[in-house]
């Protein structure tokens, strides 16, 4: 219920929302949890395993119980914490993990089966018969024991990612974080202050104490106003820093749209990578419950959460509240409630020396040992020396002490330290390089202490950053000592809950210890303690303490479980922002792209490039018709093909030839200016890396071409050789792939076409096969290479890229005038297979020059990359699978790429495998299927019939082994 005069919300701003279909009203600034409590709704969820009715335990992101699904349809978001979800007009929240409804959950039958579902039940039950596990047990358990479900439809929400850089990242905007940001901000440092909450201020929003002369919340408001005004400070609200990474990098999730009724196309969440030179963790502390029988009933929550609901949201979670604690801080809750006019039925303090009060009854040296009520708390049982007593109450505020929020300091594999005086773990110093902890997350719980530590941490960071700290006065504030006597679990029968989200009880931990799972890591896995989505934020330390107790060890001796990133769950969609679908993948288009699309050419991806597959002519219905026509066109007239995607590397300098000689297997020293040579590159392990042609354009200038696929690899390789192996060589490289548009002009009429186009016709005898030089193309300076990837008389004509499109259109028009036209990747592939020319289908990283029939290209006169290891006996063995041609000779005429080769009479088993097919095509020139493949001792077996078997497609074809060059083996057409 809402308490008059309490809270920070504006009572004049009502917001209507729905929970499980029922309409409620809350206030602007409410969370779903505070609004439901204001409406008297305590039951908000069902537990994971036993389907026990549950209400809120906390008022923050550590909430284990109140998980709901927000929205409906494709965009619904399961497992949202009601304590974090801000309400907005039209919010539609639904409870989960129950059937048919939250109030009547038939799956609650699991609770009756509890004796069989204790620690290790996953490992003990359902073990036999083995086949039943996958088909029966696991699906049944998963159905009953689950959290919310995704819609199963594509997520229509938008997610984003962003990067930020700063001098100082301050994580948490409570008193310590605000003070740190203020000091560093005034010093002029670039500061990012991030807080997971919608409103900054941390515990100051939930407490009534003063800071300086004013209320803490007013002080926070003034500091925030000043920080907002500083251009060097960035405030990031609703932003959870989820993990630290190397060299000062942090991951952070900003929730941009969860609180908005309409996002207008904006992102739901943004995942930030923040790089900070220094960082301060000011994440505060989380209160821990005390385990006692049936301590999971709706209405039982942490004492600090009750203060938050009262002081921040103006809500009392009950009409007759009781408080149970083992420390002085719990008394604040009772005092604040009384101040607000809420009835406090009693404060039960386990300490015999607990402070007394005249505002409410204090039960010193007493413990709460049980609770009762239907779907919510109605009374508790108190045990003291005097015996047991019942107390009517609808809300029990529990405080077992506070655990510093040191999670981020564990993420890089450092374990925290135990501090006996506060009965809690604190961060190990230096756990994250560049990060220091300040305030409650460092074990300093008083407001004054937090302010002091925040300021000190900022001053230390400024000193590291080489900046002068400004004079800043740390205001006065509450500086009470933190007095606590540990109490983890109240002894007694029944089930006392530790991990609410995974339904782990004190008994489960004891059973684990009894079965010798005494290591904390074993206990954790055996009981699933701390392994739910909240990572045991409110239960790990208590579970550890129980384990320590039953195994007769101290807590530090027992150990500490670490935490892993993310601090709180992050949707995969946020981490993968920009990566769904095409994402940010660039598209590389050639200059002829639009002209090719104009002709209806379907595009095919080649790495990031898009290249035309074929150019359909009127009346053609299949790609094969177009491809066959284009092949005949090149063989009989002239074809135009954009080959700009091949890598082009300009190599210049006195030592350019030395470099080429070193990276190619064959000699380049003798290459004359105006000539092109085919070269083969190996990796240092002796296998083939790439092939291509290199032209000598001038005395000290070469132009290397690489395959489209390996362009980047070759560039990197050349850079490695020149920087890492021969920095003494005077040679420079640059990629010019995108600077030049290059077109193949191939076919018997290629020369006639060029003579009509070039400003000076090609003189007879000046342009033999493998010649190159400068030409003028309608006044544009270009380069011409007489090279052929089709086996025809062919040229490649290059012009600066800005002339590419115009030249392509001109070439195609002229080719058509000669009975030719453009050709695409399909025809290009057929033409090269007919000629036995290799691509990366053959250079697949496992083949050697010997395998490819190029062994003679390995020079014996010089050293080159890969030379030594290429001579290994295994790489030269006669029975290696080596390049051959294949053609069908039986009834079946189909040869498929990827099929395997066997001796004609052999069983097609792996043991009999003799090779495989790398490339296939229908040859319109020869009128049948042809293929390239690798066959053991292949070149020795020409004329033999082998069996091709494609196990995947169910094809079996008898093939004759032939030489890999099917067409014009003498090469007369290309040279003529």
């Amino acid at each position, binding site marked *: 219920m809402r308490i008059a005069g309490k809270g920070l919300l504006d009572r004049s701003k009502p917001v209507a929302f729905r929970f499980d279909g029922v309409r409620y009203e809350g206030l602007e600034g409410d969370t779903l949890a505070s609004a439901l409590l204001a409406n008297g709704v305590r039951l908000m969820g069902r537990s994971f395993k036993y389907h026990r009715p549950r209400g809120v335990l906390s008022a923050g992101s550590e909430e284990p119980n109140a998980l709901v699904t927000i929205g409906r349809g494709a965009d619904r978001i399961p497992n949202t914490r009601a304590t974090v979800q801000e309400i907005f007009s039209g919010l539609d929240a639904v409870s989960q993990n129950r059937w048919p409804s939250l109030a009547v959950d038939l799956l609650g039958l699991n609770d009756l089966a509890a004796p069989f579902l204790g620690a290790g039940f996953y490992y003990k039950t359902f073990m036999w018969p083995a086949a039943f596990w996958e088909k029966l047990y696991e699906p049944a358990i998963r159905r009953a024991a689950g959290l919310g479900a995704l819609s199963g439809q594509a997520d229509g929400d938008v997610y984003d990612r962003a990067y930020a850089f700063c001098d100082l990242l301050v994580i948490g905007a409570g008193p310590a974080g605000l003070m740190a940001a203020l000091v560093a901000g005034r010093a002029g440092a670039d500061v990012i202050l991030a807080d997971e909450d919608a409103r900054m201020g941390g515990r100051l929003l939930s407490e009534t104490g003063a800071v300086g002369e004013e209320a803490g919340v007013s002080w926070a408001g003034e500091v925030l106003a000043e920080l907002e005004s500083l251009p060097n400070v960035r405030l990031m609200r609703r932003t959870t820093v989820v993990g630290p*990474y*190397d*060299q*000062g*990098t942090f991951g952070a999730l900003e929730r941009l749209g969860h609180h908005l009724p309409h996002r207008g196309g904006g992102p739901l969440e943004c995942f930030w*990578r923040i*790089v900070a030179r220094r960082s301060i963790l000011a994440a505060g502390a989380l209160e821990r419950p005390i385990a006692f029988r049936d301590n999971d009933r709706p209405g039982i929550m942490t004492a600090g959460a009750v203060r938050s609901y009262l002081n921040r949201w103006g809500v009392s979670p009950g009409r007759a509240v009781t408080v149970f604690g083992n420390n002085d801080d719990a008394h604040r809750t009772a005092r604040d409630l009384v101040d607000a006019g809420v009835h406090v039925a009693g404060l039960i303090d386990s300490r015999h020396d607990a402070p007394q009060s005249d505002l409410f009854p204090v039960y010193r040296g007493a413990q709460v040992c049980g609770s009762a009520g239907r779907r919510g708390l109605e009374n508790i049982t108190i045990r003291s020396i005097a015996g047991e007593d019942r107390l009517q109450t609808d809300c029990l505020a529990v405080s077992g002490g506070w655990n510093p929020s040191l999670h981020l300091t564990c993420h*890089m594999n450092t374990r925290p330290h135990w501090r006996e005086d506060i009965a809690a773990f604190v961060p190990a110093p230096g756990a994250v*390089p560049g990060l220091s902890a300040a305030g409650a997350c460092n074990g300093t719980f008083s407001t004054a202490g937090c302010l002091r530590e925040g300021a000190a941490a900022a001053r230390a960071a400024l000193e590291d950053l080489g900046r002068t700290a400004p004079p800043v006065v740390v205001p006065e504030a509450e500086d009470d000592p933190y007095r606590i006597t540990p109490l983890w679990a109240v002894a007694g029968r029944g089930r006392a809950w530790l991990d609410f989200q995974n339904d782990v009880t004190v008994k489960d931990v004891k059973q684990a210890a009894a079965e010798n799972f005494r290591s904390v890591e074993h206990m954790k896995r055996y009981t699933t303690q701390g392994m739910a989505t909240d990572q045991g934020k409110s239960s790990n330390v208590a579970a550890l303490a129980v384990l320590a107790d039953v195994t007769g060890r101290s807590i530090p001796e027992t150990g500490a479980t670490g935490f892993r990133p993310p601090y709180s769950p992050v949707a995969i969609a946020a981490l993968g922002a920009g990566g769904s679908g095409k994402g940010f993948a660039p598209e590389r288009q050639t200059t002829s792209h639009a002209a090719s699309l104009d002709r209806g050419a379907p595009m095919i991806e080649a790495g990031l490039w898009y290249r035309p597959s074929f150019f359909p002519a009127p009346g053609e219905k299949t790609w094969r018709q177009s491809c066959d026509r284009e092949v005949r066109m090149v063989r009989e007239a002239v074809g135009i093909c954009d080959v700009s995607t091949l890598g082009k590397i300009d190599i210049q300098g006195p030592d350019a030839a030395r470099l080429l000689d070193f990276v190619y297997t064959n000699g380049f020293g003798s290459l004359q200016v105006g000539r092109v040579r085919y070269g083969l590159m190996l990796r*240092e*392990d002796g296998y083939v890396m790439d092939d291509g042609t290199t032209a000598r354009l001038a005395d000290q200038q070469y132009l290397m071409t690489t395959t489209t696929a390996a362009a*980047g690899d070759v560039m*990197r390789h050349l*850079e*490695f050789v020149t*920087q*890492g*192996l021969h*920095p*003494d060589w005077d040679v420079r490289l640059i990629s010019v792939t995108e600077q030049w548009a290059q077109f193949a002009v191939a076919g018997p009429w290629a020369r006639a076409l060029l003579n009509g186009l070039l400003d000076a016709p090609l003189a007879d005898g000046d342009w033999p096969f493998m010649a190159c030089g400068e030409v003028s193309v309608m006044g544009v300076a270009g380069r011409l290479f007489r090279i052929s990837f089709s086996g025809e008389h062919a040229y490649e004509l290059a012009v600066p890229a800005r002339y590419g499109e115009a030249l392509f259109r001109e070439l195609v028009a002229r080719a058509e005038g000669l009975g030719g036209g453009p050709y695409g990747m399909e025809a290009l592939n057929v033409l090269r297979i007919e000629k036995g020319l290799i691509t990366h289908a053959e250079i697949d990283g496992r083949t050697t020059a010997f395998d490819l029939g190029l062994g003679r290209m390995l020079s014996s006169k010089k*050293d080159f990359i890969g*030379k*030594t*290891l290429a001579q290994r006996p295994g790489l030269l063995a006669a029975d290696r699978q080596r390049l051959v041609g294949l053609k069908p000779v039986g009834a079946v005429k189909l040869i498929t790429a990827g099929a395997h080769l066997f001796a004609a009479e052999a069983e097609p088993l792996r043991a009999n495998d003799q090779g495989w097919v790398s490339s296939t095509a229908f040859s319109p020139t020869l009128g049948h299927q042809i293929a390239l493949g690798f066959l053991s001792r292949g070149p020795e077996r020409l004329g033999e019939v082998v069996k091709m078997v494609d196990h995947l497609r169910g094809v079996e074809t008898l093939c004759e082994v032939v030489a890999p060059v099917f067409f014009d083996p003498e090469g007369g057409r290309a040279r003529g």
Partner: protein
Amino acid sequence: MRISCPLCGPRDRREFYYRGAAVALQRPAADAGEDAWQAYVFLRDNPAGVTRDLWYHAQGCGAWLVVTRDTASHEILATELAAEVAS
């Protein structure tokens, strides 16, 4: 992880291509023998501690770097240009 390129300054590791141990800079002579070549191409240490490896600033200046780092703490101890280490 961030690497300080001597030419470009501190950059995210996504800008870099990783090659492996800096041993690759010590290429043996062609006639150095099987053992030397086997060690050069295939044998690598796998230290829990300080290691030196080669990174290529692919999305930056194109420099090959020798990065000295600790595989246990992920601390980067030094970054040098491979061209300077090799010469």
